[in-house]
């Protein structure tokens, strides 16, 4: 196949579609692809599927500014055109904000992400509460909870999955906390577990995934664009 290309793009999930499950999101994108007439590459076999991959599932109820996907196309599309064209067909609440052509042989999307930056807006607490909580957590090297999985319950140490709290700020009537935490198959901090660590109920908080990164030491690099940063806990 000549002229094939892979486009990696970053998209947002807004309040209109906040309560869609990961499967709902995949379905919505699949249908948008068809409406937009994107020239997708299909897998071989009895039931050919478009060759796509998405970043780690966002929990139901969370918003996001940084979801990612790779689409394999059978034509070489200009990423800027892709962004503009696809946005016209996406449902309200989803928006592609960045798109790039991926060089051949680039690592898979999943291997490019192991950390997420979350914004959690907590009603009815003070910055001091959160700060105090974080200080005591920092002193511990383990925070073990029971995690329910499909194969039964197991003990998980949550402490190493929380990388840090770069921001704790007072807003009107709420506190906004930014947390860096593990995401992906190597280690994943669930939102309800983040709630356990920081003492909040995820159903009462507004949670936004601000970014997804590959963390190497204290360097955080996004899978798209040059938006990386270095961060270490003081």
């Amino acid at each position, binding site marked *: 196949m000549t002229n094939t290309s892979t486009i990696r793009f970053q998209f947002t999930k807004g309040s209109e579609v906040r309560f869609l499950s990961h499967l709902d999101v995949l379905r919505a994108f699949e249908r948008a692809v068809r409406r937009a007439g994107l020239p997708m590459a299909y897998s071989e076999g009895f039931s050919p599927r478009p060759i796509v991959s998405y970043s780690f599932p966002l929990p139901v109820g969370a918003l996001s500014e940084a979801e990612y996907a790779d689409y394999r196309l059978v034509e070489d599309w200009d990423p800027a055109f892709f962004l503009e064209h696809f946005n016209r067909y996406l449902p309200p609440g989803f928006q592609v904000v960045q798109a790039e052509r991926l060089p051949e042989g680039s690592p898979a999307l999943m291997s490019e992400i192991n950390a997420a930056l979350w914004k959690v807006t907590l009603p009815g607490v003070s910055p001091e509460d959160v700060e105090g909580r974080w200080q005591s957590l920092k002193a511990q090297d383990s925070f073990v909870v029971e995690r329910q999985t499909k194969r039964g319950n197991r003990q998980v140490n949550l402490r190493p999955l929380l990388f840090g709290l770069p921001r704790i700020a007072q807003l009107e009537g709420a506190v906004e906390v930014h947390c860096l935490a593990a995401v992906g198959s190597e280690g994943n901090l669930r939102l309800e577990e983040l709630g356990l660590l920081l003492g909040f109920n*995820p159903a009462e908080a507004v949670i936004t995934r601000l970014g997804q990164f590959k963390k190497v030491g204290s360097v955080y690099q996004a899978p798209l664009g040059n938006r990386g940063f270095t961060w270490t806990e003081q």
Partner: protein
Amino acid sequence: MDKRLLPLLPLVSKPARYTNNEVNAVHKEWTEDKVKMVLAFPDVYDVGMGHLGFKILYAIINGRSDALAERAYAPWVDMQQLMSERGIPLTALESGRSLADFDLVGFTLQHELSYTNILKMLDLAGIPRRSRERREGDPLVLAGGPCAFNVEPLADFLDFVVLGEGEEVIHEVLDVAKAGKQRGVGRREILRELARLRGVYVPGFYRAVYAQGKFQGLEALEPNLPTTIEKRVAPDLGALPFPEEFVVPYTEVIHDRVMVEILRGCTRGCRFCQAGMIYRPVRERDPEQLKEQVAKLVKSTGYDEISLSSLSSGDYTQIRPLVKELIATYQGCGVSVSLPSLRLDSFAVELAEEIQKARKTGLTFAPEAGTQRLRDVINKNVSDQDLKEVVQAAFQAGWHRIKLYFMIGLPTETEQDLDGIADLAKQVLAWGRQYRTSRKRPEVTVSVASFVPKPHTPFQWRGQDPLEVLQGKQEYLMERLRHPGIQFSLHKVEHSFLEAVFSRGDRRLGAVLERAVDLGCQFDSWDDQLRFESWLQAFRDEGLDPKEYAQRCLEPGDPLPWDHLSPGVDTKFLVQEWQRAQQAVPTPDCRWDRCSLCGVCFNLKVANKLTEVGRGD
């Protein structure tokens, strides 16, 4: 969406049921000059979103600049509880406004077990249940759909009812509602004008008369009312509008695909089947028009499946070329074609092969009865030979799983007929072993429903078997179908019993319905929600015996609560069919044989409309 629901969404199952903002949802500006109608489906979003009728009406109403249509569904029990605790009314998805703010609240009556949900939805919206309790400023509550043909159990709750096809009469209804609104006339005056429209029934203008606990007839309470309300029917489907866009849900719903209606009506004449009587005559849509509709819908929705829907899709005269062409056009972009209702004939297997080239999942056939004799009684014109051919063809073509639908409790049924079901299932399995080409072991699933007498069918007079009898028959079958390779699935007899009660019910059941809702009954068609004990209590509390409705055998000539609601089929024809049934004499399909004199074409000035001369089988 109503913003007040937002904090509740993290607390309920399937929150995407309540969030709106789907692709192609229509949000019109809420202005005083518009007639506002909410299409209210008396079940959850995931069930209601599959309903084609509402998609059609949504497009028609929103196509008018002087009207708007929105959607509402029954919230699931978890959400209802939270809404009640917080005093949040039932709202429409698009504007988030209470149902009580609309001019018209329109329910669809798809089956009898959804009636409690209608009352529940009115309760949740704060709309008085009973028509006579509603005041100026309250919406007009209407209903349509198949159960409108005996709407009497709901007579107290509905301001008016539309019989038959809605595409044309909806405009007349909106016009009357709009004019009434502009002139500021009262509800009663608007209802009087609505009662003048063909196909519109205003139950409150009639009174039911009973003697010795039996229904005697209806009396008009106003001058110039029709004694019989005849259904609306369009002679040519091609002249009716069809949506170019469907609202595309995010969460999984039933029939989540492009649907086009290839034909309406069925004249096969199965004697238990209400749809086969009330949707006559047969009208096929032009294949060119269908292809255009499909193209527009695939483009506007992005669905990966096209369903050619009708009561019996294999009967469409040009089904073969249509299916072939659609497959050729769409398979390249991963869009498949499906035919939901296939009749049992070898042609069906050829069609299914066309469609399921790669994945031969399963084939479903409905012989309905286990013996040739009983199939002749019900006029299911399928012979033992047909059955053999079709099943062999299916196994030879590579299918390994066959599902068979049967009904028990049919008129004249004997033990032999039940044995026939078991024998047939085993025979199919044996054919499977003999003829299969698939590596997989043949499997047969037998699904058994209980006969429910339906108004306007030749079996309307026949009472349903008592619950214990039906249960006994189920057990009898279960015993005989305990066999490796055969799976057996049953419909709860309690469901079929309540269905029979309300399908043949009269106005007195309104009180029972209300009582049942007060006792917590709703979502009665859901296995895990049916509260049968509460239902029995509701009947006791209102002093009515449900068995009288479901099980009593009536005589032709007895006054029936639905006598005044006409699908155009003559009672004379139904009586004749009832007699032929008892003699096990089949009646051929008038599409390919002589006219069966059902009366529809003569009464309603319509005729069967096929796109090509019949395929002559």
